[in-house]
């Protein structure tokens, strides 16, 4: 068998080729380039699966530098391009290419069959998006990751603003770009800080910045780093970690930079599925996972991550409770679920976070594609109060959507149950041994469980149950196989995805059957995963020189049951309230709270006010100072020269006699000066 790692570059490069091909010839290709995209992502998926298979059966981690653009010559910094395919990257490659593949197929029905124009642009952007994300996933250093991180941002800008002739999408695209750019600004400073501190940005290898940082903090310190601003070593590591976290919070839509994501619903629905499940938003969380060994060194950074994550999970869930558009509910649920992943990462639950990222990718892609099918059926009306009764009219969509919803709500035995439970359990485990920040995060997480189940089933009942509330809902447009196929695949995966890591049942099935844990600990590969393995991360987390977390031994059954009961409570409440054939809009009873939630806590207004009420006057004042102060000095110097020149040029009379007189006078003066100085008199 050919060594699959010889072609590992092709995983990202084939979508890039597809991008160029579609860009050049898209209009003349069958299906306007969809087939080329499907082929490319299908190829990437196949190779990714082979890589996973190889790593699962004792392959070796692939880490290779492909290209060096600045050679360090042993001193200073070195910039290079390289690939790192370890279990985490391989898993993520598979997720990204799988979701992208299914989204391409779904787009056949969503875009092509609807007679959309501009399909060449659509498929080209989609391929470029896939390429950037795949390349980001197996980047072996922070700088390269940053480049592709930015490219991912650009592609989401292009795709969110796909329908640029309407009013909403361009503004949403601009907002997404600017808000994530704001976070990326900190990330860029962070990349430079990592360079300045460690002289390298490599993720893997014996001299990666993560390993160096660990060696610096270890009791018998052997590593070297530069610190700045007079901070201690751990404090500086915290600062660098928080700077990079800025980019993560922008991309992964964490409070307070989450405002772009609900607006991003203006893009085509398959794009939303791709952005929310596998690419754009996942990139932020994935970055934290990629350099988790670094974050594990700083308890402060971990605390911030956990608190931001827990709060975001709760905060976004409250807003999802009252939304009327199908995609808006899903958008806020995405923000909330990524909050869970951040909570897990901050709470020391690396495996839980990766697990939740995986299952979330599956069920959120499923829900978005399901929503896309509903939107097509409803002729692009997204208001859930205009739907109802779609259950019997679109059974495939209904059942798959239901599975996705059960997974999102965290109901046993669907995929989301296992992963959400793992997130909460691992956080609780570390929180109970004296980490109050984690306890707060955990409490937020539990509250969000109830609300997640509630808004999910409010959405399901309003959309699919009861009587049709409009004529369109009574006779929806049928959807084709290209939309059903991805739904069925993802629906099946949502049901069985939990098998990867059934942590709750650890005591019954034995911890050797927690596949994902073994996978991330590098137990399946030959050789050592070293500093990239989950085991090593936990070791660092529990070391006193680093985060210093302690594990409280708990049975996972209790917290698992608690989360399940809370989920069922939320689900039950939603069913009780919205089961009626003609459900009443109960949320209007909330009155002013509802208004507050509908307006997203006025955060958008607040951010606009920040821009127009604070930044703009500041900029105007600075401009005024520049115009009058700085320019005033320069202009003043000019005016003085002009004025004196105007006066002095009058001595140029043109009369030669005057010149002669001046010359003589000058000579006499000179003689007198020399005379006085030379002591002639």
């Amino acid at each position, binding site marked *: 068998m050919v060594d699959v790692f010889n072609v590992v570059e092709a995983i990202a490069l084939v979508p890039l080729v597809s991008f160029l091909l579609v860009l050049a010839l898209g209009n003349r290709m069958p299906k306007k380039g969809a087939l080329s995209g499907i082929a490319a992502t299908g190829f990437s998926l196949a190779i990714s699966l082979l890589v996973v298979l190889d790593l699962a059966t004792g392959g070796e981690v692939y880490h290779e530098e492909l290209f060096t653009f600045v050679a360090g010559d042993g001193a200073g910094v070195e910039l290079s391009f390289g690939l790192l395919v370890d279990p985490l990257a391989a898993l993520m490659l598979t997720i990204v290419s799988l979701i992208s593949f299914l989204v391409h197929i779904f787009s056949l029905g969503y875009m092509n069959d609807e007679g959309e124009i501009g399909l060449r642009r659509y498929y080209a952007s989609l391929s470029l998006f896939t390429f950037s994300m795949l390349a980001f996933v197996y980047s072996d250093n922070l700088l390269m990751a940053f480049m592709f991180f930015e490219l991912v941002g650009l592609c989401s800008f292009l795709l969110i603003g796909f329908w640029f002739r309407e009013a909403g999408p361009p503004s949403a695209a601009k907002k997404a770009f600017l808000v994530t750019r704001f976070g990326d600004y900190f990330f860029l400073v962070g990349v430079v800080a990592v360079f300045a501190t460690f002289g390298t940005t490599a993720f893997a290898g014996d001299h990666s910045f993560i390993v160096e940082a660990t060696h610096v903090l270890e009791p018998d310190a052997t590593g070297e780093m530069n610190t700045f601003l007079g901070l201690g070593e751990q404090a500086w590591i915290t600062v660098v970690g928080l700077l990079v976290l800025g980019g993560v919070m922008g991309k992964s839509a964490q409070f307070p930079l989450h405002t772009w994501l609900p607006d991003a619903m203006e893009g085509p629905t398959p794009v939303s599925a791709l952005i929310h499940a596998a690419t754009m938003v996942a990139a932020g969380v994935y970055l934290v996972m990629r350099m988790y060994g670094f974050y594990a060194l700083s308890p402060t950074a971990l605390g911030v991550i956990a608190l931001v994550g827990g709060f975001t999970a709760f905060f976004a869930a409250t807003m999802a409770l009252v939304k009327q558009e199908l995609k808006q509910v899903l958008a806020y649920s995405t923000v909330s679920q990524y909050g869970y992943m951040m909570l897990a990462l901050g709470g020391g639950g690396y495996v839980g976070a990766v697990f939740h990222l995986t299952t979330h990718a599956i069920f959120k892609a499923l829900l978005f594609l399901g929503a896309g099918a509903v939107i097509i059926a409803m002729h692009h009306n997204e208001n859930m109060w205009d739907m109802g009764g779609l259950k019997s009219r679109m059974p495939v969509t209904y059942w798959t959507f239901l599975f996705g919803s059960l997974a999102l709500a965290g109901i046993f035995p669907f995929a989301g149950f296992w992963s959400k439970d793992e997130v909460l359990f691992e956080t609780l485990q570390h929180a109970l041994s004296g980490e109050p920040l984690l306890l707060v995060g955990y409490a937020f997480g539990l509250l969000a469980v109830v609300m997640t189940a509630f808004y999910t089933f409010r959405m399901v009942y309003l959309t699919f149950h009861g009587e049709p509330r409009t004529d369109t809902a009574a006779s929806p447009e049928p959807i084709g196989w290209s939309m059903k196929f991805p739904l069925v695949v993802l629906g099946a995966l949502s049901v069985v995805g939990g098998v990867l890591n059934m942590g709750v049942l650890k005591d019954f099935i034995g911890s050797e059957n927690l596949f994902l844990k073994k996978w991330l600990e590098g137990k399946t590969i030959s050789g050592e995963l070293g500093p990239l393995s989950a085991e090593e991360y936990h070791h660092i987390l529990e070391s006193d020189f680093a985060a210093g977390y302690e594990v409280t031994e708990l049975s996972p059954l209790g917290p698992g049951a608690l989360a399940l009961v809370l989920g069922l409570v939320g689900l039950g409440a939603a069913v009780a309230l919205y089961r009626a054939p003609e459900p009443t809009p109960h949320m209007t009873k909330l009155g002013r709270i509802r208004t507050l939630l509908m307006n997203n806590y006025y955060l958008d207004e607040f951010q606009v006010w920040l821009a127009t009420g604070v930044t703009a006057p500041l900029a105007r004042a600075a401009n005024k100072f520049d115009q009058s102060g700085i320019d005033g000095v320069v202009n003043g110097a000019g005016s003085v020269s002009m004025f004196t020149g105007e006066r002095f040029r009058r001595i140029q*009379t043109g009369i030669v006699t005057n010149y002669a007189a001046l010359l003589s006078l000058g000579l006499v003066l000179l003689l007198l000066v020399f005379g006085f100085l030379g002591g002639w008199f």
Partner: protein
Amino acid sequence: MTAPLEWYLVLSAGVFCAGLFGVLVRQSALHFVMAVELMLNAANINLVAFSLEHGNLTGQVFALFGIALAAAEVAIGIGIILVLNRNFDDIDVTEAVTMRW
């Protein structure tokens, strides 16, 4: 018996002042040229006087150069005066004031 050096210098200073006076007060370009000649010759008188005083010929050689220079200067000066006359119909230097601010 020879005259003392100071006499030559007083003569030279007198001639030079006469030339300078001419340059400063005369309006005719021809007078100008003559005044300049006077100033040059004042310098030549100095050179020859010092040459005599020191007993070597360097000053006299220089004076020869000065005379040659004066001749050349007159040639150019006359040329300028001709052009002046052609452009302004006059050789009054206070009239030719187009080259000013």
